[in-house]
């Protein structure tokens, strides 16, 4: 065993950065805050790289014990429970680690430029570093409890960052919505943890999975593992924005764009996928749970894609796109192809992060405007942004040789060929791919091609956006500074070559030690017909090009067509435009009754009638009693004498009684 890798440094460094910036940042200069804000995540990334360099497959899995935490009962005695702060490194967490620290660091660099003019500059970096700490804790955890710390912590950081401009009502509400919906998912997660503790006596990954390993798959019906699996999936739905708990993600676009890029594209929302992959041993022995995962993932992918094609806000399109791509990842996990899901997670981090950062660059260029109908023709003004965004669009649409093609295609192939998969999943996946390509190219064309419809920004540099970013006086769209462009370029590079690790299933084999027992899916896939695989690959590429061509037709060559189509499908179109009224439905079903019940029962009934009245009545009672009692103090001599006489008679009686006894 090699010497200690000191994994604990990786989460702690961003935490130190958060503490320093949070406590001292208010009085420090922007430069100092930037240096601190970049140094610590950068150091974490460097350390992660060094760990990756030093460690070899023989050393993994590697456990690092930090500190003692919960110890209940005696070891070995039934009913005992232990959970410690321990870090765990294997190939899966190594990949996650590199993605989180790497992409995270790039986004930090970008934020220096994007948030430069914001008055709460230091607070942003403090929160961002705090998020990194929690995410790394989640990824490096060696038991469900430490993972849950990270899980909750990223929810907290997400709330803080979504509501970063908290003076704005919509931002504050969006933050609350995100946190509350997350909590609903966490409830399911917690029940799953309780079940695990009850039946397996521990939350430690190695211990739990060792006990789960010999259990036969529950093909006969639903059992304990199915319950645990479905509950874990509920938690994942909350965190990774799947049906029915996805509603917070579009609202989360109220936060600054780097936040959307880091948290709601690259890392936090992928925590659900990571958690499901980590628990693959449980899922593989509960086919029903796997089906649930796959169905939810597939439906969400399609559902979100349909909404995405009608949205006009550039960030909302990307938000729905994220939900849809996460659906793909869950689809992959649901058919047993966990490594494919992780592969897509990685490439998605690259191109979705890039898309958001580039969108931020676009928004910065047009002075805060986010409505795509007011953009257009920007490619001559912001060429670099256009180039990087174009690469990302090609990647997400699944056009070879860009990264998205390799991962998405792997998922589609596994959906078709895996023992848990079916051609239905494949078909829906292909339709979604078509829609994805369509709306992404629609975004590209609306934003960068055609004529510029934007409002002429006045001398004060205020566009029509309501965001507190990029307010320097400028008369026309301009390119972003280098500090914002360099991360874009690096991510573009990764989006181009990042998928090549998937050739020859090299990525999957890398993850074999983790998913080894679940390699059933891969071996089945490899022995199936190679021709079929190539055929399906061809179909998905053709579909992607079809989507792009359709977008070209509708938005460039015949721009009057979309309106006609929308009018033709009037009712249906309005429903889709309004996100199928899901938010309104939830409001009616859950939110309003809860608020009404809380007002009438808890406030009027319990708080006012029971609690307040108890106190008030106690006070009133005391007043009444003392009113009666003070009648004694009449100032009348004779009544005092009367009392004395009566009292002494009582005392005499008592003494006689005692004497007689």
């Amino acid at each position, binding site marked *: 065993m090699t010497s200690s890798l000191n994994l604990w440094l990786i989460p702690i460094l961003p935490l130190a950065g958060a503490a320093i910036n949070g406590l001292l940042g208010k009085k420090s200069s922007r430069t100092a805050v930037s240096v601190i804000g970049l140094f610590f995540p950068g150091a974490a990334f460097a350390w992660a790289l060094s760990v990756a360099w030093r460690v070899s497959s023989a050393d993994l899995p590697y456990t690092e014990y930090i500190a003692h935490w919960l110890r209940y009962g005696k070891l070995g005695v039934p009913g005992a429970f232990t959970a410690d702060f321990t870090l765990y490194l294997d190939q899966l967490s190594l990949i996650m680690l590199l993605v989180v620290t790497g992409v995270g660091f790039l986004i930090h660099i970008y934020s220096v430029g994007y948030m430069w003019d914001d008055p709460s500059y230091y607070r942003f970096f403090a929160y961002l570093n705090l998020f990194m700490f929690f995410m790394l804790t989640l990824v490096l955890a060696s038991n469900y409890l430490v993972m849950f710390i990270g899980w909750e912590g990223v929810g907290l950081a997400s709330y803080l960052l979504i509501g970063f401009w908290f003076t704005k009502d919509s931002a504050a509400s969006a933050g609350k919505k995100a946190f509350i919906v997350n909590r609903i998912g966490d409830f399911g997660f917690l029940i799953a943890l309780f079940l695990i503790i009850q039946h397996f006596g521990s939350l430690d990954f190695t211990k739990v999975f060792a006990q789960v390993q010999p259990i036969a798959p529950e093909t006969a019906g639903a059992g304990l593992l199915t319950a645990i699996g479905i509950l874990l999936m509920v938690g994942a739905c909350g965190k990774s924005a799947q049906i029915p708990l996805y509603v917070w993600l579009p609202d989360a676009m109220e936060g600054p764009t780097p936040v959307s890029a880091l948290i709601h594209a690259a890392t936090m929302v992928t925590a659900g996928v990571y958690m499901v992959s980590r628990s693959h041993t449980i899922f593989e022995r509960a086919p029903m749970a796997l089906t649930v995962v796959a169905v939810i993932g597939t439906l969400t992918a399609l559902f979100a894609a349909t909404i995405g094609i009608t949205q006009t806000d550039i960030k909302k399109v990307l938000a729905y796109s994220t939900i849809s791509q996460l659906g793909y990842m869950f689809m992959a996990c649901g058919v047993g192809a966990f490594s494919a899901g992780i592969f897509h997670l990685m490439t998605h981090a690259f191109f979705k992060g890039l898309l958001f950062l580039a969108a931020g660059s676009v928004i910065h260029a047009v002075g805060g405007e986010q409505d795509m109908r007011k953009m257009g023709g920007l490619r001559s003004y912001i060429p670099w942004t256009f180039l990087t965004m174009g690469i990302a669009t090609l990647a997400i649409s699944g056009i070879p040789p860009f990264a998205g093609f390799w991962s998405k295609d792997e998922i589609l192939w596994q959906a078709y060929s895996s023992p848990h998969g079916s051609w239905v999943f494949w078909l829906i996946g292909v339709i979604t791919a078509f829609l994805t390509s369509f709306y992404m190219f629609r975004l590209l064309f609306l934003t960068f091609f055609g004529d510029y419809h934007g409002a002429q920004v006045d001398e004060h540099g205020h566009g029509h956006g309501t965001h507190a970013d990029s307010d320097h006086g400028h008369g026309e769209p301009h390119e972003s500074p280098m500090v914002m462009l360099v991360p874009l370029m690096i991510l573009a590079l990764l989006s181009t070559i990042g998928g090549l690790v998937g050739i020859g299933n090299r990525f999957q084999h890398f993850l074999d030690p983790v998913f080894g027992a679940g390699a059933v899916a891969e071996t089945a896939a490899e022995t199936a017909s190679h021709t079929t695989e190539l055929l399906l690959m061809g179909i998905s590429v053709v579909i992607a090009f079809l989507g792009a061509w359709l977008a070209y037709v509708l938005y460039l060559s015949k721009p009057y067509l979309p309106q006609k189509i929308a009018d033709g499908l009037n009712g249906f179109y309005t429903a889709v435009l309004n996100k199928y009224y899901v938010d309104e439905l939830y409001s009616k079903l859950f939110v309003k009754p809860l608020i009404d019940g809380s007002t009438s029962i808890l406030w009027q009934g319990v708080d006012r009638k029971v609690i307040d009245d108890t106190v008030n009545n106690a006070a009133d009672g005391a007043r009444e009693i003392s009113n009666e009692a*003070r009648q004694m*103090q009449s*100032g009348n*001599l004779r009544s005092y*004498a009367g009392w004395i006489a009566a009292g002494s008679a009582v005392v005499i009686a008592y003494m006689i009684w005692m004497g007689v006894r």
Partner: protein
Amino acid sequence: MVPLSYYLVLSGFLFACGVTGFLIKRNIITIFMSIELMLNGVNLSFVAFAAHWHSLAGQVFVFFVMVVAAAEAAVGLAIIIAVYRTRETLNVDQVNLLKL
């Protein structure tokens, strides 16, 4: 030969009369006199017991009681005079400034 109990009953009766006077009388001076009556009743009891137990300490105690009663009467009557000066009344029901 008079039984001791006769003396004690008489003493008790005098004491009870004193207390009753204290309770039902309205003139402050009469109330004061009831107090003196109480003290006298107690004195009788002391002397009776002194005779019973053949101890002169009881009679000495009566002596002290009388001294204290004298002092108390002097001061009490002075207070009554002072109160009469301000309140112009000897009716104890009207001297109730200590009422809450």
